[in-house]
């Protein structure tokens, strides 16, 4: 099994998808001649030519909308949004156009497109290039939302996203691009299917993207025995996998990279509470970033998103006291 970087797994998925299906095309800013700002389209222009691999002007709205139109006409476009924040100027085309085409045409049109965007904090890009904004799109019926956590899931989930008949938002944690891991190209992922990465007895941790790796480190640091579920797909999230695990452990913690308010973890906690209330051993809770923009200063940025130390502290405290621990910003008396 080859070992490769996360970004190379993306390249491999795009290459294999384009080889398998001539209707797959990719476009975005600097993805062709420059091979992608994060080198996620290395070699594609040379291999597939300028008809299928296109540089665009800095026009997210137009090229995202063009992907919608091309998808409706039988192509499978994959567009790249360099930094997730740039979705802001293209959101109409996703939330209001792509997500509604099937509905408004009574199923006559579908929109098999993928929007790839790099996401997340940790690299010193400042608050306009470091956000984790799944909640911008997760509340729009008609859009699927996927986030891989390692090279294997990057490859398998991207293949699944491209093959999917609906519009898929595919968010790549930027901090992982250089990370290495084994990739088995024969592993097929299914949109909407979680991965159980660790099995244990004390509690269930549900996470997504790079927070999966943080949670894994925290489980190891704290020495507890836990189920670790990598959702992989946020919409539709794998309710059954989560419920099965919490049925067994009786405890749930959701680890999210985005700020506390309005985060997707609330959905998981609410669902588990509703379905399993009487069998829970303690209140399910979330570990998130505080309600602030991503700070630039390195020390502060390291504290912004949940880190393994903070997650480990909250895991141990919750197990010890059978209660929901306060996040660090309350413990430190910064916010009431």
């Amino acid at each position: 099994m080859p070992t490769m970087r996360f970004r190379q797994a993306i390249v491999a998925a795009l290459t294999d998808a384009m080889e398998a299906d001539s209707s797959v095309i990719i476009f975005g800013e600097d993805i062709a001649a420059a091979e992608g700002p994060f080198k996620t389209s290395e070699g594609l222009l040379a291999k597939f030519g300028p008809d299928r691999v296109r540089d665009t002007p800095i026009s997210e709205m137009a090229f995202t909308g063009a992907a919608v139109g091309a998808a409706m006409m039988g192509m499978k476009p994959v567009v790249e949004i360099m930094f997730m924040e740039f979705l802001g100027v293209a959101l109409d085309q996703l939330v209001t156009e792509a997500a509604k085409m099937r509905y408004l045409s009574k199923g006559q049109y579908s929109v098999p497109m993928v929007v790839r965007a790099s996401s997340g904090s940790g690299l010193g890009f400042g608050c306009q290039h470091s956000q984790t904004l799944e909640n911008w799109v997760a509340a729009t019926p008609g859009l699927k939302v996927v986030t891989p956590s390692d090279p294997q899931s990057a490859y398998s989930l991207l293949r699944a996203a491209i093959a999917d008949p609906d519009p898929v938002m595919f968010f790549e944690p930027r901090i992982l691009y250089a990370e290495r891991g084994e990739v088995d190209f024969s592993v097929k992922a299914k949109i909407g299917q979680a991965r159980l990465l660790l099995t244990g007895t004390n509690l269930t941790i549900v996470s997504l993207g790079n927070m999966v790796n943080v949670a894994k480190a925290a489980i190891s640091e704290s020495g507890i025995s836990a189920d670790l579920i990598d959702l992989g797909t946020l919409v539709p999230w794998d309710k059954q996998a989560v419920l099965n695990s919490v049925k067994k452990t009786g405890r749930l913690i959701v680890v999210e990279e985005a700020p506390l308010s309005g985060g997707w973890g609330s959905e998981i906690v609410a669902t588990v509470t509703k379905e399993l209330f009487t069998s829970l051993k303690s209140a399910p809770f979330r570990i998130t970033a505080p309600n602030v923009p991503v700070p630039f200063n390195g020390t502060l940025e390291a504290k912004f998103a949940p880190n393994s130390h903070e997650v480990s502290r909250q895991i141990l405290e919750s197990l010890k006291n059978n209660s929901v621990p306060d996040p660090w910003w309350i413990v430190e008396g910064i916010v009431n």
Partner: protein
Amino acid sequence: MSTSLQRRAKLKDNEVAWFDRMLEIREFEKQTNLLFASGAIRGTTHLCIGQEALAVGLASVLNPDDVVSATYRGHGISLALGLSSHSALAEIMGKSTGCAGGLGGSMHLCDRSVGILPTSAIIGGGIPIAVGAALAFQIQKKSNVAVAVFGDGATNIGAFHESLNLAAIWNLPVIFVCDNNVYGEYSRINTTTPIEDLHLRADSYAMPNMKVDGMDIHAVRDSLELAINRARSGGGPTLVEAKTYRFAGHSRADTAPYRPEGELAEWEKRDPIKLTREMLIGKGLLTEDTATQMVSDMEDFMKSTIESVQQDPEPTTKDMFKNIWTEPEW
């Protein structure tokens, strides 16, 4: 009842059929307005009275496998392209027999069989989508074209600029049709836009452009044919500005009190239906009597269509869960 494709085929080189379709649109809009006023239509409506020559002119020069991305003021374009009055009215009245099963409403008409992409209720929202459809045609090496129809107000939104720029650098087979009806919602164009001739905006993208009298169906057809032929033969996009006039208000009960006195009356002298009728009588294709008979037949047809739609069933609660994703099982 004829299919959308058959309705479309009727427009082929048949001037009397163009007139008939224009009458259909006019009567449809009049009745829609009355139904709205009576409370039989909920939500909102955006009428295209006065803009029928552009709708029918466009439909008569496009092939049915070309695609059109139009707007919330889309009843006329959709009927012209082939959607039936029954299906359109049923949609507007929220009936399950509507083109979107009654789940879309007045602003959202669609018919894939004749290339009507779902019309967008977002100003400029459909422009990038037409560009994308054209991109697909180019890559698929097809000779189809995509058309984006939008109003004068849309030329001030970012999607317009980004889309024309992208279409120009990629030399895409797309025709941008600006239906300049003088008003963007409640604002006259001169209060929102520093130039009157919006087609000139294409100069910024080195894109061929032209303006046309949108009240004259032959003029509309001639310019669009030129643009369509250019696009089909690999010559890239064109911006066509049709000078029309919105005879009704922006939406619903808007009576457009903001219009300068006499402006509507001046434009009504060039009512496209009046001009087409005169043209056909002048050519001897119609007489005053046969034209009057067509108007009266259309009134009867629309009356019976309304009666029929009113009998149609409502969608069920189950229907609102359909067609969101391809596989909604979760």
